[in-house]
């Protein structure tokens, strides 16, 4: 018996080793293949985007009108209105979606718990997370834009709808992480429910909540679909929420394959806007990581 197993072991072991090595090499190769597009994206973004970066690129509005006049040259201008527009869009969207999302999360984690209504709400939030962003844009278009025109606040509302489920679900997870004994201790000291929430639960969870909000903001700022046909795409910088606005994703689309595609300087401007957008999202993500690392919970 033992002789038998010995003779069996030797050949199997070398085949196994070969298979193991082969599979390991295959998986490594697949991982490298998967990395290729990512590396290429970063490479092209930096290569094309950095060319257009300059001081005036961030402090001047896009302008293509002069490229058509006789004997003039134009470089398309900068992307100030797109940056300002994108920041305004997510700022308003955050102001709308964060209190709502936080309220939903507090209800779910402090009152609803595993009840039937709470389960349904959770289910709907998950469905909302899965709704394609263009549908939110369409909804706002039908409801608000058709018949009265495009505007910054309407695009913000579309983004807020998109961010709401993300904020709510992220916040609920963080609130659930607050240890139950903290609540019990506070209740045992005679504190009413609202004081427990406002003085114990929320302060404990705040770093996690901020992380969740920042991730939702990062998602919202890059969304193209709702902005595309709700924001209006004005070239000038506007601080009026009722006016039409530019935004970074919109600028990229218009520059590369939209209405300014043929204009001189448009493609460089588009790449520059893309790099700016990626940098903004990267900064938001890094901030979120930094805050969550300092959190007492996670």
């Amino acid at each position: 018996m033992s002789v038998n197993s010995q003779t069996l072991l030797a050949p199997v072991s070398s085949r196994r080793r070969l298979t193991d090595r082969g599979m390991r090499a295959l998986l490594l190769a697949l991982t490298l293949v998967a990395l290729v597009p990512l590396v290429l994206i970063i490479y092209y973004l930096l290569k094309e985007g950095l060319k257009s970066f300059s001081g005036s690129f961030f402090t001047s509005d896009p302008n293509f009108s002069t490229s058509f006049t006789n004997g003039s040259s134009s470089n398309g201008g900068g992307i100030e209105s797109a940056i300002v527009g994108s920041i305004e869009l997510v700022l308003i969207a955050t102001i709308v979606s964060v209190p709502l999302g936080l309220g939903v999360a507090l209800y779910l984690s402090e009152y609803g718990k595993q009840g039937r209504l709470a389960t349904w709400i959770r289910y709907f939030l998950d469905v909302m997370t899965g709704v394609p962003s263009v549908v939110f844009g369409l909804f706002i278009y039908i409801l608000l834009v058709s018949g009265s025109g495009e505007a910054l606040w309407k695009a913000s509302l579309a983004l807020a709808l998109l961010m709401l489920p993300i904020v709510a679900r992220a916040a609920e997870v963080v609130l659930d992480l607050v240890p139950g004994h903290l609540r019990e201790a506070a209740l045992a000291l005679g504190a009413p429910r609202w004081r427990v929430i406002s003085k114990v639960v929320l302060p404990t969870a705040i770093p996690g909540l901020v992380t969740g909000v920042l991730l939702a903001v990062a998602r919202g700022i890059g969304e193209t679909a709702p902005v595309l046909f709700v924001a209006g795409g004005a070239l000038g910088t506007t601080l009026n929420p009722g006016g039409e606005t530019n935004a970074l994703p919109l600028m990229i689309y218009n520059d590369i394959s939209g209405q300014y595609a043929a204009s001189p300087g448009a493609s460089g401007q588009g790449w520059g806007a893309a790099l700016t957008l990626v940098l903004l999202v990267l900064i938001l993500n890094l901030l979120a990581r930094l805050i969550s690392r300092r959190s007492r919970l996670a």
Partner: protein
Amino acid sequence: MRARRTTTGALALIAAAGIAACGSSSSTSTSGSGSGSAGAATGAKVNATISGAGSTLAAPIYETWASALKSGQALTVNYNGTGSGAGVSSLQGKTVAFAGSDPALKPKDVKGFKGKKTFQFPVAAGAITVSYNVPGVKTGLKLTGPVIADIFDGTVTKWNSPEIKSLNPGVKLPSTAIHTVYRSDSSGTTNGFTTFLSATSPTFKSKVGAGKSVKFPVGSGASGNPGVATAVSQTPGSVGYVEQAYALQHKFTYASVKNAAGKWVAPTIPASSAAFTGIKVPSNLGLSTINSKTASAYPIVSQTFLDTYQDPCKDGGLNQTKAKGLKAFLTYAFGAGQKTFGTGQGQLPYASLPAAIASKDNAQLAKLTCNGKPIK
């Protein structure tokens, strides 16, 4: 205790940001860029923002005017070049204050406004060039309507085919295959181009026909004048139809075309302006400059219109301020705006309106109302 302070701090910050965002809404929209242009600043200042969409043929005009008005008056005009067809739909959907449309409104378009009365104002005219990218051919070829029709319906497939050769003796033509580029969106440029081809070639009329979106049997589609210009510049052997401003922007070589009087005419500003000569102007101002009979006129010149509601407040959803802004914009368009066209340095390559038509525009403009009352 520490945690509490952070919370209140954060809340205060959010509140402050909110107040800042709301507070600045009324005041700071036009603090920008100097005040160089003197011509625009004649009328009273109107602090308004209006938006328009449509014709890409006319987009350079509206963009240039918008930037002149922004520095001259406190008026912001946002224009999206979405194509003539889409522009009219946007106006019907009341998402814009005005539409740019190259062809006059047809009964079908009027029906889309559901009985609401609209105005169309001729704004300018632009030459639709037959621009090509054929390596080695740097001079302007001579082409007739029927030959251009044959190229775009797929009958003529090579650059050195006898049809083109016989019109251009002495020009060395390569045997490259012809690749045509047409507009994929609903387009006034397509309407002007196919109207001319249908008028000169009965086969094209029966095979393809005239309209804003027609089905070309060969070639590939691109969106907007910018899209066609980009496609032609990137594809050797290709030919497309783009407005002259785009052809000049891309430094294209374009053809001289035989007009109705039998003369070879290259697209130039004087040749486009000549298309207005002896034109019939109907009472709704729905004129057409295509296939002009004038001997010095380029035959494929398309007029472009600005369409809006007669009562943009009641029917178009504008408020009093925006209606005032629209009127100020139109006043500029038929006055100082016409002086931005020409062949000089810094001018736009379009044909300006003859004085007689501009005055008809102004007469119609006076009839614009807001909730039944004249706009002051």
